[in-house]
């Protein structure tokens, strides 16, 4: 779906995106994570042909960007750095103008397409109000409606839940999962770990312009080979599991060993009550913190 090879963008002497090799496959919900200023938006803009790469190549649907963007982009829906509309016009008029601007815009089916897109994002009852009277969340929904208007095979969404309340976020998540189930590939750029963790099947992490990680979420969150035990009698447990205890925090023990059932049997046989038992999995946050440096909006003087 999306393949980049050594994609690089320099603004003057600043390297915004540095030799990034993205690989998004059909059917993925790909989470593109990165701190503010890590180069996410620049990458997204390059994928869409808005910013021209300094070096490297991009392919969407197997076709080179920006050379073949007129063939490729009609199959892509995008939300880039927040929605943007003509404030003095109603949402439906905005969508209809947007639809009429590009190719393959059948006039007869336009009305239906606009209504469908508005219904999908929960704005069908919004009426003739001008967009400038919309709330932040409504504008975001209208932005999504714009991305969905052409029934795209690939959605490239930059911070799609920005400005939405928890209920709205939940709705959008369901919407994206539903679209994905029907075959839409979703490329989701965000700095919100929770959003990516709940939604995505694959994750790419950008840090200071470099892609430091690109793996299926399931692999990242695979068991670490350690087990967490909470017990009423931690001292007895430590004695019993001598040498295998890697750490202790109150009644919480970290045990070397990937089989919780075996540890449980050992403890219970010795009469140590077990409150909680689980194979340790790192959260996405822990994985990412391990592999990235401090946020790139933190500007420190170089230490000598």
């Amino acid at each position, binding site marked *: 779906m999306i393949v980049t090879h050594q994609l690089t963008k320099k603004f003057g002497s600043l390297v915004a995106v540095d030799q990034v090799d993205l690989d998004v496959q059909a059917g993925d919900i790909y989470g593109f994570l990165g701190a503010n200023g890590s180069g996410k938006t620049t990458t997204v*803009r390059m994928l*869409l*042909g*808005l*910013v*021209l790469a300094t070096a490297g190549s991009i392919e969407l649907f197997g076709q080179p960007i920006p050379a073949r*963007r*007129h063939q490729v*982009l*009609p199959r*892509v829906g*995008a939300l*880039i*750095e*927040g*929605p*943007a*509309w*003509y*404030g*003095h*016009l109603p949402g439906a*008029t905005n969508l209809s*103008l*947007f639809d*009429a*601007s*590009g*190719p393959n815009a059948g006039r007869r089916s336009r009305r239906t397409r606009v209504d469908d897109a508005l219904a999908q994002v929960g704005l069908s009852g919004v009426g003739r109000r001008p967009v400038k009277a919309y709330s932040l969340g409504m504008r975001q929904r209208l932005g999504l409606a*714009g991305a969905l208007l052409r029934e795209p095979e690939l959605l490239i969404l930059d911070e799609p839940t920005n400005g939405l309340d928890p209920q709205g976020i939940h709705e959008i998540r369901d919407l994206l999962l539903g679209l994905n189930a029907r075959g839409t590939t979703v490329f989701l750029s965000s700095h919100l770990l929770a959003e990516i963790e709940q939604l995505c099947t694959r994750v790419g992490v950008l840090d200071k312009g470099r892609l430091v990680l690109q793996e299926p979420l399931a692999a990242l969150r695979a068991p670490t080979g350690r087990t967490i035990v909470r017990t009423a009698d931690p001292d007895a447990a430590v004695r019993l599991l001598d040498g295998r205890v890697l750490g202790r925090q109150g009644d919480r023990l970290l045990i070397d060993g990937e089989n919780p059932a075996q540890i449980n049997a050992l403890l219970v046989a010795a009469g140590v009550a077990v409150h909680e038992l689980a194979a340790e999995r790192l959260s996405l946050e822990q994985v990412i913190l391990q592999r990235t440096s401090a946020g790139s909006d933190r500007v420190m003087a170089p230490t000598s």
Partner: protein
Amino acid sequence: MIAVELRKLTRRPRTWVTLLMLNLLPAVVAVLLAITNVGPRPGQGPAFLSAVLSNGSLFSVAALAIVLPLFLPVAVAVIAGDSVAGEAQAGTLRYLLVRPVGRTRLLVAKLVSVLAFVLLAVVSVSAVGFVLGTALLGNEPVTAQTSVISISGSLLSPSQIVVRILLAIGYVALSMLAVAAMAVLLSTFTDSPLSAALGALAFLIGSSLLLTLDAARSIQPYLPTRYWLSFIDLFRDPILWRNVERGVGIQLVYLAVLLGAAWANFSTKDITS
């Protein structure tokens, strides 16, 4: 895309407010002339005003001469300066380009919409001028018997007058297109419509200033505003073509160079707005 741009232009309240304001000054002048019947002394004040007291149909041209030095360029610069920078500022530019609309195509559509505005402005000013002039000023019907007197003193028939008014409208529109081209060029450089409009006006003010400077005599024939008022020559008998022709040539050169630069910049620009 051209149809979309024209819809955007007509659905924008600002377009109509600008046109209204543009017509206000000639209207005030017409009313004042009608009430006082005091025209400027020959050779002073805006062109044609002394002539319109006897026959109001020339007020359509006088109205153009009134708004040409400042009002019309301001209106055109504001609309044209908004063309690309306005979309960039609103953020809609990035969505148009990924819809996708080709950059050249978008620029052409913007130019057509600016052209439509220029024509609308020039035609509306002369039409309103004609209506006001005939209603308030010399209200004798223009027939073959009551011919209009040209600036040179001889008589012009109504059909000659109509042709000349149309030529004048075309000439003024062309002059304004060069202003529009400058504003569109700047509009592709900045994300601020205001900067683009003011930049284009600065260019005109600079040109007008150099026209008053004797030391700049050698470059004066090449300044964009040098032949702006030459459309007055269209109402001499016979028509004095020399300055009109030069004016058309200069404007076409400016138009080609400025639009070429706008295209070259916009088609290769990183869109970061």
